[in-house]
């Protein structure tokens, strides 16, 4: 099969090369020469060396924190949307779903770019606030841009529809008789939601959460465009090791680590992802 050959040469083989770089068995520089060594791994991972944590590992834990915050906020923002589409907008729900998804068929990069136009001190949002007299032009709100807030906002914004979709699918396929039964048995609207709807929609929520978690862990475009110099994420350090600092061996350690973390995330969540697929078939 041509596609198998294609993937083995251009995906599996390069990952093996990265692994070889990470232990010094290949290199792109003359000095130090090729020699088998775990020293780059030891310098990076805190449990392999004594002394303080390396800046790179600190950056990794910070990226995981940002990723978790983004994933949780995207789910929290998207759930009401999915709920509204599935239960309130009964007849028009597919049209509304289309309206909601349409912006996300347009360029992802241009949507990030739009935020770089809106968020700065002299950007659209601040000027609108000035115009309304809420902000003084000499003292614009600066935490909107070049900040962790900006990274979180833009990433959560990018993911909302992707998160809303799996939750919507689960809610839309819920057996309504269960909800009616809960209400017949005396449960209020709120306790029906809390004790019936929410637990039943959990597979969709977890699937959505993982859909955000995996790509955000390696993300470097959004932090570069809207984050400040102290907010760069792990992916930026990987990119910089290859294109800026020319430290390919160390960069390979970071890339391998990212791969391993993502693989572990998939292994842990695969149970929920397949459960979600079974749920869709009802």
């Amino acid at each position, binding site marked *: 099969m041509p596609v198998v050959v294609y993937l083995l040469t251009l995906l599996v083989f390069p990952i093996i090369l*990265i692994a070889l770089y990470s232990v010094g068995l290949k290199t792109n520089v003359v000095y130090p020469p090729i020699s088998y060594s775990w020293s780059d791994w030891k310098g990076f991972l805190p449990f392999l060396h004594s002394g303080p944590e390396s800046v790179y590992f600190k950056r990794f834990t910070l990226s995981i924190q940002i990723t978790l915050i983004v994933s949780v906020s995207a789910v929290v923002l998207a759930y009401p*949307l999915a709920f509204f589409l599935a239960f309130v907008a009964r007849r028009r729900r597919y049209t509304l779903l289309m309206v909601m998804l349409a*912006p996300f068929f347009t360029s992802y990069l241009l949507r990030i*770019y739009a*935020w770089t*136009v809106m968020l700065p001190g*002299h950007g659209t949002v601040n000027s609108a606030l000035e115009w309304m007299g809420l902000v003084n032009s000499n003292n614009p709100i600066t935490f909107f841009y070049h900040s962790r807030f900006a990274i979180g906002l833009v990433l959560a914004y990018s993911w909302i529809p992707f998160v809303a979709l799996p939750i919507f699918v689960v809610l839309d396929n819920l057996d309504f008789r269960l909800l009616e039964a809960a209400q017949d048995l005396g449960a209020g609207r709120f306790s029906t939601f809390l004790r019936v709807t929410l637990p039943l929609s959990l597979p969709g929520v977890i699937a959505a959460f993982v859909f955000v978690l995996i790509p955000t862990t390696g993300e470097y475009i959004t932090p570069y465009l809207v984050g400040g110099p102290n907010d760069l994420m792990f992916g930026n350090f990987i990119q910089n090791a290859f294109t800026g600092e020319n430290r390919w061996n160390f960069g390979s350690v970071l*890339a391998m680590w*990212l791969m391993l973390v993502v693989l572990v995330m998939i292994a842990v969540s695969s149970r929920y992802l397949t459960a979600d697929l079974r749920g869709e078939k009802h």
Partner: protein
Amino acid sequence: MVLFLYLPLAVLVIFSFNNNNSPVLPLKGFTTHWYDQALNNPNLTDALKRSLLLAAVNALAATLLGVMAALALSARRLFGRGFVIALIMLPLVVPYVVLGVGMLILLHSLGLHTSLQALLVMHVLVSVPYGVLVILPRLNTLDPSIGEAARDLGASAMAAFTRITVPLILPAMASSFVIAFTISFDEVAIANFLVPPGHNTFPTYLYNNARTPYLRPQTVAIGGLIIAASLLLVVLSEVGRRRAERGLGS
């Protein structure tokens, strides 16, 4: 909420016509000056042309490869099916920064320089899984006896494929083409590693010039144009699909 989702798009479209070089309210009046400026900036227009060509070739190659893979996977017997499926879906979960790094190292090992061809190869790699995901379910719904009937009536395997199977999976192939085109036209995380100096694609042009204030109005203009055009396409294709469905239903 819907307002929030559309806000960035609206900002690009509105400010592309605003007669002020910084994107602030209140609006100052209508102009097409920024569009003129953008279309007369060869760096920008060359990047756009490169991206359009790259996206078109990618869409074609990824769809062909996707059809081949889907055909193999739809066979009743296939040695190592689980492994093949896992391999094809792998690009969906490998972080793009790792894909970019991997190709960069591969090129270096082979003594090759970065090139748009190398980028194309990676775009095909990340587009194929989506192609398989839309084409394979369609192939699986086809009744195998249709193909067998064609063969019984004297069609060669090739003729049965091109005259029976292809027309039936054409809508899925079209979806695969559009998805692959969009992926390539928008992809920057891999492109940053593989685009040779002076050969920006549109996404790497945006990425590299996002912090250059004097280029901003014209970039906003082109961005607004692309956003408006793609939204229009989405709406038209959705309306077309619904018309077609209604036509089938009556």
